[in-house]
């Protein structure tokens, strides 16, 4: 479904020097899988999502395939949607009009799509807020609106860039629940990027561990918790075992890169 093969990526910084971010990065994500990526801050996690969504320049070497096609084709086919840490909403539009935006851009305002807005808002528990202005919503509500808007283009792949990090525990659990509902109902394949090991284990089926820059995958940890997952799962042995495994994999990954 998603294949990153030997990706090397660097960009020029403000001083014109090359900053090497990714080095022979390779991983695969299967259909309907929730795949986590963890690593130290600034290691290039967001860059991976930008490459997958065609929001970054092409990598210097390697190949990326999204659902069998290159990222630019996948973007044009609207197969990929990205949800960022900070909800990127337009304050001059209300909730409904924010969600309508991708449909407007595609010139596809029709009964079916308008109905889809209502049904997605309903699942997200936001239907009664559809006429609200953005500043009237809490951070968690804004994140849910952002998520619903992502799903308006009917993507098959959802990229999540630290979606839980700005939320408190209660909102985090609500979003976790909602993401699981959407992933199941819409058969989504998800890549979830985070620096939080707990969030990653709680949400993902597999978690790839990255080292320091220039980064590559140093290990992949499988999480065998059942679904739907809740915060109470954090007390389970399986969760704690996966957490320990992931923590030590991360330490090893960082060490390996330091020695290099």
């Amino acid at each position, binding site marked *: 479904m998603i294949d990153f093969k030997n990706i090397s990526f660097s960009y020029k910084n403000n001083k014109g020097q090359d900053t090497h971010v990714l080095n022979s990065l390779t991983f695969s994500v299967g259909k309907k899988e929730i795949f986590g990526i963890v690593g130290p801050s600034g290691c290039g996690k967001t860059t991976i999502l930008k490459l997958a969504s065609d*929001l970054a320049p092409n990598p210097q070497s390697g190949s990326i395939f999204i659902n069998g096609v290159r990222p630019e084709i996948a973007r044009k086919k609207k197969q990929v949607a990205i949800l960022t840490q900070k909800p*990127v909403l*337009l304050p*001059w539009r209300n909730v409904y009009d924010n969600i309508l935006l991708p449909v407007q*851009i595609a010139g596809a305002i029709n009964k079916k799509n308008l109905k889809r807005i209502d049904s997605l808002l309903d699942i997200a528990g936001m239907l009664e807020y559809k006429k609200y202005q953005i*500043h009237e919503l809490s951070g968690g509500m804004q994140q849910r609106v952002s998520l619903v808007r992502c799903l308006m283009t009917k993507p098959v792949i959802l990229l999540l860039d630290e979606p839980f990090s700005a939320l408190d525990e209660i909102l985090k659990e609500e979003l976790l629940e909602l993401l699981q509902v959407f992933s199941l109902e819409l058969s989504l394949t998800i890549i979830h990027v985070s620096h939080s090991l707990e969030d990653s284990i709680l949400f993902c089926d597999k978690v790839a561990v990255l080292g320091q820059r220039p980064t590559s995958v140093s290990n992949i940890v499988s999480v065998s918790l059942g679904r739907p997952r809740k915060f109470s799962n954090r007390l389970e042995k399986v969760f704690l075992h996966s957490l320990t495994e992931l923590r030590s994999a991360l330490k090893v990954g960082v060490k390996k890169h330091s020695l290099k």
Partner: protein
Amino acid sequence: MNNHFDKILPVFILVIIIFGWIIATKFFSIPSYILPSPFDIIESANKIGSGFWRDFFVTFFESIGGFFLGGITAIFFAIIFVHYKFLEISFLPYAIAMKTIPVVAIAPLLVIWFGAGILPKIILSALICFFPILISSLKGMKEVDPERVDLFKSFGASTFQTFIWLRLPNSLPYLFTSFRIAVVFAVIGAVVAEFASANSGLGFKIMLASFHVDTPSMFLYIISVSLLSMLLYFLVVFIEYVTVPWSFSLRNLIND
């Protein structure tokens, strides 16, 4: 409680100033041609009568005309500059240079070119409004959150769609900030142009009153110019409140 006191305080200060002004002119026997008392100004207003409103509206329309002409031209150039970088590089220095020319110096030239009618006043007002609106609209159209640009890109938006649904609304708070400044400048431009050549308007009447050493009338017209500026300023604030309410709420959030 504190908030109410903050609002009353400026009014209270105004009352004190007017009271002090009346006392000073009475007790120090200052002649009215040097400093007229508020009563002299009211008396002068009564003498002038309804003819005052004719001059008031002449300056009002000149200012509004200049504001719209300058604003529309500035926004047009900002749109061009945002989309064609080489045009911005070529022309922006001249727009900045234009700002350095004092309006008082241009006014007589405009009278030669466009006659003594309303046109040179509108043009001078437009010139003075042009620069702040151009710079603000350029800033507003350019300084878009890169994540929002990425969002539009990920939805496959065209340049036109990104402009209409992102860059333009994003520039509105910047634009209204410049409108607040420019609308006051527009009144200054109209008044200065009337100094150069006119047969009506508040600026013309200030000049006329100065020739006749009619200081109470001068005060009346100067205060009227200030009130006109304030009226237009609050009109812009009101339009901003109605059309860009989210900008107001953002500003309140920042102030909090």
